[in-house]
């Protein structure tokens, strides 16, 4: 609904964040029910920016089916649930994707024993696919375009997909490459599975907010940008205090609120970005802690490196 | 047993249909206070329907029924008034099986007449004594014999202190041994001067207490007479036939 989400959130003193029901690395509750992951970090950063406390978040697990409705009906304030930014979602579904926190693409994972090295060799294969996702459409389009046939095995959740794939009920498992990596990482024998080189789609994943509340959209957008910019400028959770006290870089000063009054333009105080970064670190830190190469998920930065490193992560200037 | 001049029930030109079936045809009947009337007639002749019309368990479609000066229309207040003046005892007792005998008797006084519970219980015990089963007060109806149940039903009606009592074949569901207990209770009531209308085939009872016997057939009152005349000297052919069947059995 159109309205003042910022005021609502402040009044409620809690951010309601729509997340995945469980995708290791991106959003999953641990054994005690505490949520952690790459997407969760975005929620925490927004909560820190707006409410001053990264723990003031209520996580609402949403399924592929319920996520957009949850957002558009006002049930959640922000959807940080590895959702692909597409034209129709942005327009027809009346969502606003505020940016990209992960550049992904749909890929295939197969068992090494299958002897397949390219997706082009998958003609006639059985492929596990989560229903109700864009991957389903991409898959259909890809095989149609390449004049190949396949047998879909529709599954309801990622957990189901893993089960099917591991039992050999499908030759290939397709989902976003990040998801494939996460899934493979969880296998007992990750070395026996390969992710095929073809990436058949562009899957920019990012947080979304409701259409219409531009200020709220700005807040989430710039919180995300702050995380990305922080990495670019070398602001980390460890040197945050130090830099805010004595950084000479005007960009950093503006970012951390030591000069100019950027926060007020969005109805926040000046330290919003500082708190957002303090919540779980800058973009790079979050990446490394949740899905990076040191984690079981083991994703390389790839497209998600800073633009300065040859990646696509590019935060507009803070001024 | 004195009959006053005051009119208790007046039924005039009353007709009733079930769908298109004409059950009661042009009934005219005046009952005076203190009168005891027995209605007899073959099965399906409309006896039950007639007395059920008197306390508006059934609606009549034309003519008038005036009970105690109150005309029965669809006005709920009138119906309520009439029903609290008129007690009714059914063939199958229709006691409330989930309540004790005492609760059966106090339910209506408490909830309809708004009598305090204590007082209602005292009254109930008085009437239970009258029907000779005060010791059963805390039992449930299911634990009583048929005759006892019917007497509880009578006591339950009496607790509302009605001025008129209607009985619809009160003994026909009872085993022969129990019929007597119930008839005795009814005779006692009659002796106290209660206005009564009773559908029954107990001709002994009719002869003992009735002021008038009404014979119905095919929804009409065919003959009315004093019991003596009715049994010894019936006028209509139908009555004769009926009496021969009843008495012959």
């Amino acid at each position, binding site marked *: 609904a159109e309205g003042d989400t910022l005021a609502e959130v402040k009044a409620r003193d809690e951010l309601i964040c729509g997340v995945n029901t469980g995708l290791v690395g991106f959003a999953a509750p641990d054994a005690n029910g505490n949520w952690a992951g790459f997407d969760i970090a975005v929620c925490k950063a927004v909560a820190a920016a707006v409410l001053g406390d990264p723990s003031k978040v209520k996580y609402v697990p949403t399924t592929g089916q*319920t996520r957009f409705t949850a957002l558009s009906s006002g049930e959640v304030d922000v959807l940080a649930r590895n959702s692909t930014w597409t034209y129709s979602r942005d327009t027809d579904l009346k969502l606003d994707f505020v940016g990209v926190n992960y550049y992904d693409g749909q890929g295939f994972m197969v068992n090494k024993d299958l002897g397949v090295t390219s997706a082009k060799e998958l003609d006639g294969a059985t492929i596990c696919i989560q229903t109700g996702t864009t991957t389903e459409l991409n898959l259909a389009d890809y095989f149609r375009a390449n004049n190949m046939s396949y047998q879909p095995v529709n599954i309801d959740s990622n957990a189901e997909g893993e089960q099917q794939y591991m039992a050999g009920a499908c030759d290939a498992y397709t989902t976003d490459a990040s998801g494939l990596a996460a899934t493979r990482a969880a296998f007992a024998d990750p070395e026996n599975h390969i992710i095929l080189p073809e990436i058949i789609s562009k899957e920019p994943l990012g947080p979304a907010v409701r259409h219409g509340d531009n200020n709220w959209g700005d807040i989430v957008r710039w919180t995300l940008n702050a995380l990305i910019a922080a990495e670019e400028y070398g602001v980390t959770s460890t040197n945050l205090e130090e830099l805010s006290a004595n950084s000479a870089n005007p960009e950093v000063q503006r970012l951390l609120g030591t000069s100019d009054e950027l926060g007020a333009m969005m109805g926040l105080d000046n330290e919003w970005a500082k708190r957002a970064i303090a919540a779980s670190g800058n973009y790079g830190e979050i990446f490394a802690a949740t899905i990076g190469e040191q984690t079981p998920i083991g994703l390389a930065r790839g497209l998600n490196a800073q633009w300065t490193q040859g990646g696509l992560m590019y935060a507009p200037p803070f001024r | 047993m004195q009959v006053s001049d005051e009119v208790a029930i007046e039924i005039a030109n009353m007709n009733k249909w079930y769908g298109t079936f004409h059950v009661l045809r042009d009934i005219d009947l005046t009952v005076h206070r203190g009168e005891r009337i027995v209605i007899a007639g073959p099965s399906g002749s409309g006896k039950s329907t007639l007395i059920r019309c008197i306390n508006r368990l059934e609606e009549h479609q034309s003519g008038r029924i005036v009970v105690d000066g109150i005309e029965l229309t669809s006005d709920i207040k009138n119906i309520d008034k009439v029903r609290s003046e008129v007690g009714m005892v059914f063939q199958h007792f229709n006691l409330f099986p989930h309540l004790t005998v005492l609760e059966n008797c106090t339910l209506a006084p408490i909830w309809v007449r708004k009598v305090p519970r204590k007082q209602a219980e005292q009254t109930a015990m008085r009437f239970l004594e009258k029907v000779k089963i005060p010791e059963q007060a805390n039992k449930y109806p299911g634990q009583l014999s048929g005759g006892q149940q019917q007497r509880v039903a009578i006591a339950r009606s009496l607790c509302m202190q009605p001025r008129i009592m209607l009985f619809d074949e009160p003994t026909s569901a009872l085993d022969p041994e129990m019929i007597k207990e119930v008839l005795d209770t009814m005779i006692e009531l009659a002796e106290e001067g209660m206005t009564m209308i009773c559908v029954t085939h107990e001709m002994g009872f009719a002869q003992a207490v009735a002021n008038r016997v009404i014979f119905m057939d095919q929804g009409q009152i065919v003959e009315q007479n004093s019991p003596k005349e009715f049994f010894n000297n019936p006028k209509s052919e139908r009555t004769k036939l009926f009496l021969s069947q009843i008495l012959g059995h």
Partner: protein
Amino acid sequence: MSELHAQTVPFVRDTMLPQQPPPNRETGALHWLRANLFSGPINTILTILGLLIIWFLVSHFWDWFAHSVWNAESLTQCREIIAATWGEDARGACWAVIRERWHQYMFGFYPRELYFRPIIAFGFLFVALAPVLFSESVRIRRIVLIVAAAATLILSVMVGAPLPWLVFAAIVMIGAVVVAERNAPWLLIFSALYPLLGVWMLWGGSAWGELSVLASVALGWLAWRLSVRISPLIAVIAGVAVTLALLLFVAGDAAEDLQSLIPLDITAIDSDQFGGFLLSITIGVAGIALSLPLGIILALARRSDMFLVNKLAVVFIEFIRGVPLITLLFVASLLLNYFLPPGTNFDIILRVIIMVTIFAAAYMAEVIRGGLAALPKGQYEAADALGLDYWKAQRLIILPQALKISIPGIVSTFIGMFKDTTLVVFVGLFDPLKGISDFVRANFAWKGVYWEPFIFTGAIFFIICFSMSRYSMYLERRLQRDHR
């Protein structure tokens, strides 16, 4: 009757024959076998078939059960233990996952130190149900109450309930046992208060919220009481209006003010911390408790001779019964917000409970309608003849009897609904069967355990549902006997 024949000579027995044991082949184990297992060719074939089925099941599953592992940290470790103990090819059950995660299957993400709260709330449930469900036999009610009390207290101690709570629980439970022995109908008061008490114990927060609801209802009742002499109709309207007005406009603020004056709160729990059987039971019990009054109203409406009322009830009941529960759950999660004023946003569990209630109410209405139909017409007529009005007749005469007859049906409805609570997983809640299991399996340690969680949750569902169905069968038999 002239020709009496020689053989009709009168006969009189002077010594009675004693009982004699039956011939040998009529008794003994062999006879039993012959009569019950091998009485004919078809029977023999069936016996052999039955034995084959048993053999098949045992031979396939025995090893697996025999090779159970209870102590391990992950599935891999389980497999290693099995391989080490029973050889490389051995397969075995890894119950360690249940051992490690049982609390999540039971309580979801409810804080561990507060487990005693659901346990006590659940124990109180039996007290609340005792006067309704176990009124048939004093002995059973006594056993149920005592066992519930003992189990609640023992379990609470085991999960480390603080002393004041233990004392509170003990007082209530022992009090209930005593009251039940003395004057059982008084327990109904507890039953009436239980919904609020249960909600407060499960969700926590300020007790003033519940108390202000109670106060609103009490004031509404007072309004009814005061005006009932004027006109029953006005009284009902006044009562409902007062209650609603208080609930909508006063209760919330009053509760907050009182809370700030005299804090009376316990740790508040969010709905998203509910999961596992706690979630199932909460939804099931709330659904049944709420659907009962709604079901009664629907049943009465459906039996009404007012055309419009009747048709509305029919349409509602048939509509709800005609669509799968899962679509109603989707309505709860996807559409309910469309139907409510913009900006309203309320708890998903509450929404699910609303839909489950509506769903159960439609079935309940049919069950109760059956009970109403089973009452002889004479009961209605007697009530009429005594001058009781419609509502009094319903409340005092008809419903008490009809509901009693309907209890077995109500219990069956509850069993069905309780099983259906597993479907909430499809709207993102953590039901014990799939929600919690998927969550447990999302962890690296337990990826790949399927059968153990299935068997564990299945067994618990079986125990609960089976005992309830036995209970309802027992009631059914009893009621049948009573009616003759």
